């Protein structure tokens, strides 16, 4: 009987090694371990054995059963693994085929350039203020100390709605509005559309965008203006950016300075963009003219302030290498989607 059991075990093992699917395994299991299976048959005939042999044969029979069960399980696992592997192989794809990109839009390059500027100033404690595009001559010129016969007031420079109303030529009138309404300390930036009577060409546009800033406080100095705008330039163009403050003339500031920064294309070595000088003219700035403070109801004896302004179109064009300002307002998708 023992021999018969061993024989069964070997016979089953041999069969299991050959099986290819789980159904066959099940057949084998039924054949040997099922209710009418070979092993069960053998065990059923145990009664015919002498009493003293029964425990030993019983033990062998159990060993064979355990062995068979284990072998069957292992075979099942092997078949599963094989099947999984086969499925995965079958599912192989060409991973070099293109992906499906989600459709995503973007902000206009001018907005993106402005966002970057805004972020720096907001970090320095500035609030963003806005105002109307159609402005009064008073806010755009008179309050800002522009001489009554200044050429910038001419028809050839400024778009008029009527003699007292124009399209703003700068965003400084927003600062006038802020000063008239609020008490110092004031720390604001005013971005927005501006208009000048220029025929469009590669470098001129009758509509363009500006960012201006204003600080009014007790004891504001030209040193503060320098320090703050230097930090701004470094934030925007990198730690190694140098700034140059050149005296200049603007009616609304005194003293006034134009600010150059190290050319960000060539890092000051000289290139076509900076016309070989290594510097890029970045913004106009100065200490707010006492007349302007007075016009807006702020006592220039107690307070002083500084202001600055820059053209966002020009900065965006330099930053992104755009050579024609008209591209900014054409909104060709092939242009917009580059940013």
């Amino acid at each position, binding site marked *: 009987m023992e021999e018969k059991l061993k024989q069964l075990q070997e016979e089953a093992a041999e069969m299991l090694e050959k099986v290819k699917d789980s159904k066959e395994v099940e057949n084998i299991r039924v054949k040997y371990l099922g209710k009418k299976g070979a092993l069960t048959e053998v065990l059923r005939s145990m009664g015919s054995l002498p009493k003293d042999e029964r425990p030993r044969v019983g033990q062998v029979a159990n060993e064979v059963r355990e062995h068979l069960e284990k072998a069957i399980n292992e075979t099942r696992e092997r078949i599963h693994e094989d099947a999984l592997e086969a499925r995965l192989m079958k599912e192989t794809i060409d991973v070099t085929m293109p992906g499906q990109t989600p459709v995503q839009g973007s902000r206009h390059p001018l907005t993106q350039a402005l966002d970057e500027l805004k972020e720096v100033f907001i970090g320095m404690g500035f609030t963003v203020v806005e105002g109307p595009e159609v402005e009064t001559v008073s806010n755009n010129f008179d309050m800002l100390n522009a001489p009554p016969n200044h050429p910038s007031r001419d028809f050839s420079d400024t778009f008029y709605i009527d003699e007292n109303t124009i399209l703003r030529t700068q965003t400084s009138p927003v600062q006038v509005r802020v000063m008239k309404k609020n008490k110092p300390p004031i720390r604001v930036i005013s971005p927005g559309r501006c208009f000048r009577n220029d025929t469009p060409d590669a470098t001129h546009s009758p509509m363009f965008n500006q960012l201006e800033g204003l600080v009014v406080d007790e004891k504001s100095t030209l040193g503060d203006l320098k*320090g703050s705008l230097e930090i701004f330039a470094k934030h925007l163009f990198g730690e190694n950016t140098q700034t140059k*403050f050149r005296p200049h003339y603007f009616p609304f500031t005194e*003293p006034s300075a134009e600010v150059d920064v190290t050319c960000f294309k060539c890092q000051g070595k000289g290139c076509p963009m900076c016309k070989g000088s290594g510097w890029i003219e970045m913004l106009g700035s100065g200490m707010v003219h006492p007349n302007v403070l007075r016009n807006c109801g702020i006592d220039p004896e107690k307070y002083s302030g500084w202001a600055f302004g820059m053209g966002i179109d020009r900065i965006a064009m330099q930053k992104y290498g755009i050579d024609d300002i008209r591209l900014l307002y054409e909104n060709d998708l092939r242009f917009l989607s580059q940013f």
Partner: protein
Amino acid sequence: MLVPVKWLKEYVDININTDELADQMTMSGSKVEEVRHWGEGLDEVIVGRIEKITPHPRADKLVVAKVTIGGKELQIVTGAENIHEGDKIPMALEGTELPNGVIIEETFFRGEASQGMMCSPDELGIPKHMVPEEFKGGIWILDPDSEIGKPFTEVLPLVEDVIEFEITSNRPDCLSVLGMAREAAATTGMELSPPQIKLKEEGIDWSNDGAVSIEDEDGCYRYVARRISDVKIEPSPQWMQQRLIQAGVRPISNVVDITNYVMLEIGQPLHAFDAEKIVDQHIIVRQAKEGEAFKTLDGVERKLTSNMTLIADAENALGIAGVMGGEESEITDQTTSIILESANFNQDRIRKTSQELGLRTEASSRFEKGMDPELCLLAANRACQLIEELGTGKINAGVLDQYPKPAKCFQMEIRPEKVNGLLGTDLSTDEMIDILNSLEIKAEKSQENIMVTAPSFRKDLQQEADFIEEIGRIYGFDKITPTLMKGDIMVGGLSERQKMEERLKDTLAACGCFESLTYSFVSPSSVDAIRLPKDSFKRDFVKLLNPLGDETSVMRTSILPNMMEVIARNIHRNVPTGRFYEIGHVFYSELEETADELPMEVTELVIGIFGKDEDFFTLKGIVQHLLEKMGIKQISYEAETNHPSYHPGRCATVYADGKLLGTMGEIHPIVGKNYDLDKDRCYAAEINGNLLLEMASVKPLYQTLPRYPSIVRDLALVLEESVPVKSIEEIICEYGGDWLESFELFDVYQGNQIGEGLKSVAYTMTFRHTERTLKDSEVDQVVQRLVKELQKQLKAKLRE
């Protein structure tokens, strides 16, 4: 302002090179536009003489010239037309490299050898403004006395550094070599030595014979006249011509050149009249008569107005003050005596006169910036000195000088602590005084303060800040220590509305929309293109008085036309698909209720899409998603069949909380046609940006996650196709009960299986109780009630 450096050095001892000077001047406020080193690379060009000119045997437009250059004769083929036998010309020989990079070689033109080249001003790299009119487009013909074989640059010594300065409008005193010398002296710390004027007057005092009367004292502040006799009109000497050329002025003849020279040197425009043409030698400065006709020396007959100031004699007008002289009194080759005018006029008058006449001259552009009346006599005398020195004429004794109200110099006290306070410096009072003195601003200590007197030529110095700037810029802005802002810490940032606008832009970008920016001004016909009705308030434009053209003559009342242009431009450029949005102002002629009384400006958002995969519902999806992200609740869409810009069957009005938020739909094909769009369908949404940004509110509040299972029921209804799903959904909302968590339309079907005029609409509904597990039977009851209601109200049947 072009300043030849050698000329500048006559008045100030500059011991640094030109580039360094340019840098320093820029940093003290005289911005250098360009430094030009004229004549560089022309060393090898020499003087030649044309001996003989013969036609080219095989070319009509060419000639063959024999040219001698110091003992050697060359054959040159040229197409130049302004050359004659005997002319002396600049010659580039074989091997010479010209400034434009061309290296001259022996070449053959139709078989004739050319052993060099006669040079045009262009080939010599001489800019157009420096070229006498007669040589433009031809060869530069040299002075007949030029020595053959000599280097060209010695004959016409253009080799010179010239700095071009940008002069700001507040500094007309810098529009002269002397003015720039003053700046250079203050900048470099060197002494200024202005020209010393010594006059040799002759004969009896003419001021007894002649006279000057200023009748128009508002128009003329000072009038100085001097008389010169025995005048001989001829070309001015080479050195003077060259200086004029370098400074950008064309030489004409000695008298004119001298007046121009003095204008460049001192800044004061001068004018020379033929003395014999002036009745009684009596000059009258008066207002022009309204409509008075006058022929200026450019030969143009001009109509004057009474706002203009005239120089006249008892009978005739002689010149328009400060703008241009008259043809009648102009000096000619026959002139033998002249009266030289050196006057000062009202700058605003000059500006208006020049504008009204459309006549801008070097003189008018200087006078309109405001000249110093103190210069009049100095300039007249300086011109006389040159006239006398150059043998141009004899200076008559006596000066006529009418100066009714001599200008007063501005004086004030400035406070050193205010100077340091504004600049952020720590300068001593003495340092401040030294700087001011270097600019010829008289400065003296006055107890704690400094008493300053502005020189007559500095009308821009009118208050403390102006003097502070002078101290700051000469001390050097670059030396001022950068500091940080003091005072209270301030929290910057965006307003709630600005934050919402940021969110809007982010959301639309995530929806695949690209932001477009277009002009705020449009053509008045733009509202025709989008078919706005004749009585639309959007036709009531804010108009520009002086637009660039009709296309940009009114402020937009809608962004839709701009969006249509963007879409059409992209379609015409074969862009297959696109999603755009623009958020910006529109302008209504109705006035704001503020003291400014400005036109109303309202923020509008327009979304525009096109492409084969786009339709009404892709647009609506964008709008829905945007409104959801902006936290706008209670949205409803209603069919709009009457909007002229949109397809009558594919247009909806959008409401939020009962308020009209906007309109969206497929663009009407006629509108499309107005933008040259034939088959392409496009879709747009116009949304009231003000309302959207005001209503937007994003305050997320956590809702407990469900703890009990949900029960899902599908509901397929068959009803008449004209019933909008909105009606079904209203009933679902009303009769769905408290447990209805959500529902979603998942299928709409029309076709054979359900019959003509009907449609099948299928919803998935999810029910859940927050505190216990629902029973199927409970939900079934709700659904049954709902179905009954749908049957009753909409004649809907459950689909088999």
